[in-house]
């Protein structure tokens, strides 16, 4: 990795952190409120980012600016992903942050963010020291390679993109309804 790559990665990382902070993701109360349906900002911001990135990627591919097949897609490791997802979810509810947002909170001087970050590094260390014991499971359980929804369904990626947009819009609408209901309950 050359200095140019490092600078680009640094700029992207800082930009991502600034976006998270400006969206209010440096506040664990706001993040935790997601799980109690009182504040759906996380869902709306993250899903908007996903949908916009998806549309930009597939439009770039459709008009020939980008060869989608050359884009690296994380291979699917189904069972490790399910277990890892559950662990991250539990950690998110208990600690109030996910890894990226804890960085944002710590960098803005929040003490809970600093503690969460300490736990994060401890977790990375423990994982690194123990992964040899479950390496086979980690590498092979539910290993499906480069799985894409369009290939799985046998339809064009454009149709899937439209489906994801419709799903996002439906979720935004439902999220706002839920926010209204649960906020009223909290205030009552």
């Amino acid at each position, binding site marked *: 990795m050359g200095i140019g790559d490092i600078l680009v990665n640094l700029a992207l990382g800082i930009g*991502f952190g600034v976006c*998270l902070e400006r969206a209010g993701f440096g506040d664990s109360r706001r993040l935790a409120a997601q799980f109690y349906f009182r504040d759906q900002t996380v869902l709306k911001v*993250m899903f908007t980012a996903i*949908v*916009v990135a998806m*549309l930009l990627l*597939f*439009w770039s*591919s*459709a008009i*020939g600016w980008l*060869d*989608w*097949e*050359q884009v690296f897609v*994380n*291979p699917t490791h189904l069972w490790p992903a399910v277990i890892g997802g559950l662990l*991250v979810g539990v950690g998110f509810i208990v600690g109030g942050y*996910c*890894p*990226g*947002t804890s960085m944002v909170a710590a960098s803005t001087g929040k003490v809970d963010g600093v503690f969460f970050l300490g736990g994060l590094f401890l977790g990375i260390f423990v994982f690194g020291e123990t992964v040899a014991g479950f390496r086979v499971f*980690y*590498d092979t359980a539910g290993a*499906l*390679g*480069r*799985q*894409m929804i*369009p*290939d799985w369904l046998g339809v*064009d*990626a*454009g*149709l899937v*993109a*439209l489906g*994801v*947009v*419709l799903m*996002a*819009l439906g979720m*935004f609408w439902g999220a706002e309804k839920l926010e209204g209901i649960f906020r009223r309950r909290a205030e009552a």
Partner: protein
Amino acid sequence: MKGMKWIGAAVLLLLGAGLAVIGQPTIEDRMRRQADRIEKALSSREPFLDPGEVLAVKHNRDVRAVILDVRSEADFNRFHLIDAKRVPVRGAESRLRAELDPKWIKIVVGNDEAAAVEAWKRLTAAGMKNVYVLAGGVNLWLTIFRDGNLQASVPDAPGDDRLRHPFPAAVGSRDPAANPEPHAAEGREYEKRVKQVRAAGAPAGGCG
């Protein structure tokens, strides 16, 4: 503010619907877009592996090689390299790409070269890495490892993709030439093409 939300939703919906209508490039579109790169690689014979190198790769424990046989079922039954998989490539490019690890060496095999080159083009356009073609196809392989003509050269013409070696029955991979000894190509001169692929680190991802 509410008006902005509706405008944003409408823009997303419009872009999504547009994508659904125009769709993504097909394999043929990608082959057209990459035609210059593909032709350059083929004219320099970059993806062609000499039978000697294919044998070396198959016996190399540091790399995993997969033989993709694109010939007809009849020819495959008559003779094929040991562990070869008969794969009709057309329409299966994405599935094959998902199933075969990018680090594995994929060698496409035909009777001569034309069908294998066509399959190589499709797989390469689908984004598959480390794909090669058996130079001279099964016909040259049999000339070397069955007939014992160790210095047989790769034919200049692409050939008609017919199996030209007679077999009394459908022997599949039971013929000794399907699995030659590791040193069977010793003395044969060829240019090595396979780039040693180092094991990559575990892929990383994150939610932010």
